[in-house]
């Protein structure tokens, strides 16, 4: 076990609508979708045509830059539609589920596994995209040995899932997955665990446990890496989400690509917030039919948490990585004199110009209103308060806006990904879109530096 990481800067925003710890099965989804945009930096090359029959685990598209990295169908069925956007960019590949076969891969016994075999099986089976690489949060490069592999079981974002609960019944598969991942790096997998729940992971062997303590974004892997062993120029680390460790474990026990997703359906507009077991890319209606949604409201459905997730249509599909679907009301209403200090204290605020801290005990109800308009950078010091890294966030944001690569590098662009700026988006007075700016900055880095 490594020394614990304890951060103080940040904020836990307590929203109403947390998922109750009941796990049920989602309704069977008739269609599924894969979205290439879920993989940062990916340019996809399609490997199937509309109408083609696909087995579970059959390749659907591959990465243009590395054709070994394939993305496979989470179900057996038929390619129903390839949805394209501007410039024929592939947005979604919709697959209609039908009974059919699964691609079965030959997996040697655990003892016979080595780095090469593990890598090849992960690549061939389509499980490689479960691994993401820092810097930048892109697909992992199969030709390198990472400095470390991080698995964070502490999800600290608002309404985020409880991985202790989610993994409870699958500990064996999780352990298998860890054992497999341990072949890929020279050091044991870093398993970050919320300090109070260390006991729940006592049985997991072969990992270096990092006890984490602190408000959001302490659960973000960037924060953990930064405070444990910060990333230096040229170094690469990998990140795998807990349920994908489990999926990899399953793959290595039966040879079939596993696309299991346990989703916490949460948020103010969800009638019965709960955990539902489904498959990557499932249609959202298969979840909402069980959890229910308050249709009297105009809602926003988010794949992920309210700070970093992606808005999706009510009849859209699950994204690839998220374990959380949040539904909150839209906030397209006016508030008279709402800008006065100490007005509308029910809206959560980290600023002391509001009495909202008095109302947080039972959880806040909030919506998607901007609560103001974008302005120039004026207030200083507020970003640092929610950013538990030894990085100057405002200066980094400004360097990204200016496209000053040397400065971005020096100020720590390698150590962050856009989601780390979710709370800054939320908290900053001038309503600066920090995540978007950092994302553009990282895209520039990839283009210019690689």
């Amino acid at each position, binding site marked *: 076990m490594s020394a614990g990481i304890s951060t103080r800067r940040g904020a836990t925003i307590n929203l109403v609508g947390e998922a109750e710890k009941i796990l049920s099965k989602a309704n069977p989804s008739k269609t599924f979708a894969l979205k290439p945009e879920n993989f940062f930096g990916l340019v996809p090359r399609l490997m199937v045509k509309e109408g083609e029959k696909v087995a579970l685990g059959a390749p659907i598209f591959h990465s243009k830059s590395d054709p070994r990295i394939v993305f496979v169908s989470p179900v057996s069925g038929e390619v129903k539609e390839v949805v394209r956007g501007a410039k024929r960019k592939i947005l979604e590949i919709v697959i209609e589920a039908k009974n059919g076969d699964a691609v079965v891969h030959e997996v040697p016994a655990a003892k016979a596994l080595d780095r090469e075999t593990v890598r090849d099986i992960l690549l061939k089976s389509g499980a490689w995209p479960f691994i993401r690489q820092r810097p930048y949060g892109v697909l992992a490069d199969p030709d390198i040995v990472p400095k470390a592999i991080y698995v964070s079981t502490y999800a600290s974002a608002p309404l985020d899932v409880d991985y202790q609960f989610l993994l409870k019944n699958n500990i064996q598969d999780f352990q298998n997955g860890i054992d497999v991942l341990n072949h890929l790096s020279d050091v044991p997998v870093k398993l970050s665990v919320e300090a109070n729940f260390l006991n729940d992971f006592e049985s997991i062997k072969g990992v270096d446990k990092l006890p984490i303590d602190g408000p959001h974004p302490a659960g973000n892997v960037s924060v953990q890496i930064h405070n444990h062993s910060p990333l230096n120029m040229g170094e690469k680390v990998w990140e795998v989400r807990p349920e994908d460790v489990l999926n990899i474990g399953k793959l290595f026990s039966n040879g079939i690509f596993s696309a299991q997703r346990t989703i916490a359906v949460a948020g103010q507009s969800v009638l019965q917030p709960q955990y539902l077991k489904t498959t990557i890319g499932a249609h959202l209606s298969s979840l909402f039919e069980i959890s229910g949604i308050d249709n009297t409201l105009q809602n926003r459905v988010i794949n992920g948490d309210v700070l970093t997730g992606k808005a999706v249509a009510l009849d859209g599909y699950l994204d690839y990585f998220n374990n959380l679907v949040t539904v909150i009301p839209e*906030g397209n209403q006016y508030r008279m004199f709402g800008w006065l200090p100490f007005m509308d204290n029910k809206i959560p605020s980290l600023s002391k110009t*509001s009495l909202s801290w008095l109302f947080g005990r039972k959880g806040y109800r909030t919506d998607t209103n901007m609560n103001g308009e974008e302005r120039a950078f004026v207030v200083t010091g507020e970003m640092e308060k929610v950013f538990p890294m030894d990085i100057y966030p405002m200066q980094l944001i400004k360097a990204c806006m200016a496209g000053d690569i040397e400065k971005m590098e020096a100020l720590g662009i390698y150590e962050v990904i856009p989601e780390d700026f979710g709370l800054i988006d939320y908290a900053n007075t001038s309503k600066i879109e920090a995540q978007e700016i950092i994302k553009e900055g990282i895209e520039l880095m990839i283009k210019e530096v690689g």
Partner: protein
Amino acid sequence: MSFLRKKLDDLKRPFGKGQKWERFAPAINAFDTFLFVPNHTTRTGAHIRDAVDLKRTMVTVIIALMPALIYGIYNTGYQYYIQTGESFTFLDAFLHGSWKIVPMIVVSYVVGLTIEFIFAVYRGHEVNEGYLVTGLLIPMIMPVDIPLWMVAISVAFAVLIAKEAFGGTGMNILNPALTARAFAFFAYPTYMSGNKVWVSEASNVDAISGETILGTLAAGGNVNYSFFEMFQGSIPGSIAETSAFFVLIGAVILIATGVGSWRIMLGSVLGAALVGFLFNLWGANALMSFSWVNHLVVGGFAFGVVFMATDPVSAAQTNKGKWVYGILVGVFCILIRVFNPAYPEGVMLAILLMNVFAPTIDHYVIQGNINKRKKRWAAALKTA
């Protein structure tokens, strides 16, 4: 509310996208958003946002300014009536003060906001709220008898040269309100110093001179005010700077709401106290032996430190930098007071000077962070 909203929407229609007056939308939006927080929802980034915005922040500063402003208005009348020797009530003093000061505030807002609106339309962005504070600060730090046209020119100079020339709100190097005062100070020195400007109508009344305490000291005179009078503020001076007590209330509001930086305020007080104390030990002239405690309550020190040095745009932006910046503001304030009797009020020049150096201070703080990172990279390369 919905009736008013509907009327406003009707009124705004010609300013909409693709409509005749689209260019002037920032102007009408500025008024609209003062009635209603707009119905805009998040598009990219975080889906929920904090209730705080720049309007709320700036209005908090205005609220914090109110005690000092109200006392300043009263004190203007008070100083006038004790000079003329007439008997007066609180209301008389307050009315006299309002009669002098309200027109200054109106002129400051009208001139300043007109320029801000023009630039917002010209640059195609919304009107920033920063001027709400600047526009109130400018009259508050002027001598009461300054002609209105001078206020107008100072405001125009500050907004155009100190702010818009640098790119508008958030980009300025110097605090605009202090720039306005410095402009007036150097352009019209006879209206900004001496013993006839600090008390309302002093030049028309042949009575006791209304010299400021620092002015008296610089001229080698004796100060006849008690510490309590200086602290409470019933002394001549720029309109709202005289009362350390009411400025302190403002400081409490700013610190409690987190809007003003306590690091800068505390740093300045420590810096000024230290240098003041050292001069007390030296004690070569009247200003040097003026107690360091008194230095903190007379003149514009308290007002400048609480409301001007803490301007987040022109101050240092890093937390470490704020300490250095604050301490140096305090140090230079006393140094200028003591060593340069031509400028008895040191705080204005001290803050402007440190405004210029704030980016340099931040540069070294950030460079420290960068060097740390690069050292780490180098160490990692060595072991690899």
